[in-house]
């Protein structure tokens, strides 16, 4: 098991003092598999990723729960020990490729920096290894790319450079925080396929953070659906998409307009989408019991006060719902 997160609580600042942003989050990520953490904005998925990497912004802190990377408890590590793990045993790819690279440093140097810091290879071979990696992720003329600056790259190419920086110290875990949100549809597909290829070569586990349930299905073996800081449902991708066990997942799938091709396109467009009413309650104002209570069409009486525990709905498929 590469990553094991148990009962994680994270609190963040707000006008009325610290507020729970992530509540009792549990994740399990074996090697060479991909887990997608799916949720709307403001549900705490990015904060979870940053807490694993130890890069929580000021004002946020882990209040309880354990985060184990390769069996080692990260919350007990000191600042320097955690820093040594970053980049070496766990790496991260960010959302905005346009601003994620240092504009005044050549791309090559930003890659060799990782190789040298973690002593992946002696300084003499660093340049060649970086050029090889650039070619491996599909960039044409890697030598020229090595010595050019980030502003000469398109969004897709910069995201490939980010992938190189992530895998060059061959970490056990790669966290990708919405890697394709800021890219075009065609480029998105390629980056997701690139991630899959890198995983098959390096055997690393990938934690994919995304707000889009359907994009995750291309890459992810397992899905965890997050809503307002707590886990609603988790299970294999096919099971969650085809037989969603939690009303929120059902609502999400129903509300996204599906592309109908071929003969299906001819049978007319459905008038309205099955939208979920209301909006996501901000951290300070979440209901006591089930977080989805205020918007759930099939809410029961006791959903309001006590929080539902994960119930098994199929092989390795759980949902936190009383229904």
């Amino acid at each position: 098991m590469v990553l094991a997160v148990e009962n994680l609580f994270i609190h963040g600042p707000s006008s009325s003092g610290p507020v729970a942003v992530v509540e009792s989050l549990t994740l399990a990520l074996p090697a060479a598999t991909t887990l997608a953490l799916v949720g709307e904005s403001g549900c705490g998925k990015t904060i979870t990723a940053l807490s694993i990497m130890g890069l929580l912004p000021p004002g946020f802190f882990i209040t309880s729960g354990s985060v184990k990377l390769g069996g080692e408890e990260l919350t007990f590590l000191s600042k320097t020990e955690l820093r040594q793990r970053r980049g070496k045993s766990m790496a991260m790819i960010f959302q905005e490729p346009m601003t994620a690279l240092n504009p005044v440093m050549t791309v090559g140097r930003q890659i060799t920096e990782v190789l040298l810091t973690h002593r992946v290879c002696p300084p003499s071979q660093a340049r060649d290894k970086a050029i090889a990696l650039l070619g491996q992720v599909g960039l044409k003329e890697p030598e020229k790319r090595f010595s050019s600056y980030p502003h000469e790259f398109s969004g897709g190419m910069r995201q490939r450079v980010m992938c190189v920086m992530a895998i060059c110290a061959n970490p056990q875990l790669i966290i990708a925080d919405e890697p394709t949100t800021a890219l075009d549809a065609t480029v998105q597909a390629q980056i997701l396929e690139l991630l899959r290829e890198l995983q098959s070569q390096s055997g690393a586990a990938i934690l994919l953070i995304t707000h889009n349930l359907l994009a995750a299905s291309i890459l992810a073996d397992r899905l965890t659906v997050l809503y307002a800081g707590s886990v609603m449902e988790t299970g294999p991708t096919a099971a969650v998409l085809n037989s969603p066990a939690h009303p929120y997942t059902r609502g999400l799938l129903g509300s996204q307009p599906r592309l109908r091709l071929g003969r299906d396109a001819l049978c007319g467009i459905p008038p309205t989408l099955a939208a979920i009413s209301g909006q996501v309650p901000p951290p300070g104002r979440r209901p006591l019991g089930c977080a989805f209570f205020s918007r759930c069409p099939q809410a029961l009486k006791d959903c309001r006060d006590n929080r539902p525990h994960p119930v098994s709905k199929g092989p390795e498929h759980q949902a936190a719902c009383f229904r």
Partner: protein
Amino acid sequence: MTDSLVKNFLTVRDLWVSYPSRAGQDCFTAVKGVGFDIPQRRTMGLVGESGSGKSSTALAVMRLIRASAGSISLGGVELTSLTGRALRAQRPKFQMIFQDPASSLNPRQRAVDILTEPMHLCGLGQKSQRIEMARELLAQVGLSSSSLMLFPHQFSGGQRQRLVIARALATRPELVVADEPVSALDAAVQAQILNLLGSLRDNFGLTVLFISHDLGVVQHACHEVGVMYRGLLIERAPTEKLFSAPAHPYTWALLSASVTDWGLREALKTIFGSGLENGVAADPDQKEKAARKKSLTPNFETTQPVSSTRSITKSIKWAISGCLKESGGQILNPRLSEDGSEGCNFLQCPLAEEKCRTQEPVLTEFEPGHLSRCRLAAEIRRQGQAVLELASSPAFGQMTAAA
């Protein structure tokens, strides 16, 4: 009542838009001779990746930026030549819904002023009635009248977009241009806004020009679709015809990138290439790039279970080539072509041949109502239908499940 509807309510002829680039020498042409017309009360979608010029077309139609050439007319009234007071007199007839709720509302104006200002500017009703009309508008977009006195930062993202829509309806327009109205919103809220737009369009009888980079949203919301690539309108057809089987390789590439069903994706890849690196290093339209905050990739509704990720096997490739042979076409083997100045602007076209490089293709109506800018339009549409036919057949399903 329908026959009195104007056939071509909004007509755009040979529209050119170019931006002076910062360096000052070569100016960047975002829109190259786009032309289309929208019948009254119909919704037309413009789809394309960032830098395809769809937003620039919308801004030009709204006369927010100056088109370098071409003509735009709304309900018979020629807009391109109007300026100053005459143009301002026409403005209430066409309004715009913007993408980013955070920057489309004046942070220092309360909701009541945001709604009454347009009414005041076009002299609609008296000052006393306007607050009542504003209250009514809020109700129509699903906001309570108590939020009349609030500032934009006191609304959530979805509610702010409802306020933007209410403002667009304040001057009772006939045409609404919606530039990526739902792209900056979350999935659940997105559906609410799409439903709201649909119902308002029918109640107010609006004609809508709907801009989006998202095929699923466009298929749901639009009657007609136009696909744009690097400033050119490369395909236009009613939604059913286009999505049943497009007739341009770029549209297929867009489709194959948006499809999340693994089996169909591999099938499409063998014919139309594996989605294309949009190698445009320079970012032509920074605003469009910034507009891509939360894109949504729709999924192909399949009858069989969605299979998990595995690589393609020989049997599938054989099955596809077999079916194409029966349909009398030979596999147009995908070859990536490098560059090319004149001729078809789709540089990475997997089906490119010598002729494509030399002749400048023209948007031709190869089938009634279906226009495409590709020489092989009919051929591509037929082969595409065959592949889709195969992909949705149960036999193909087992094969992908087995692989």
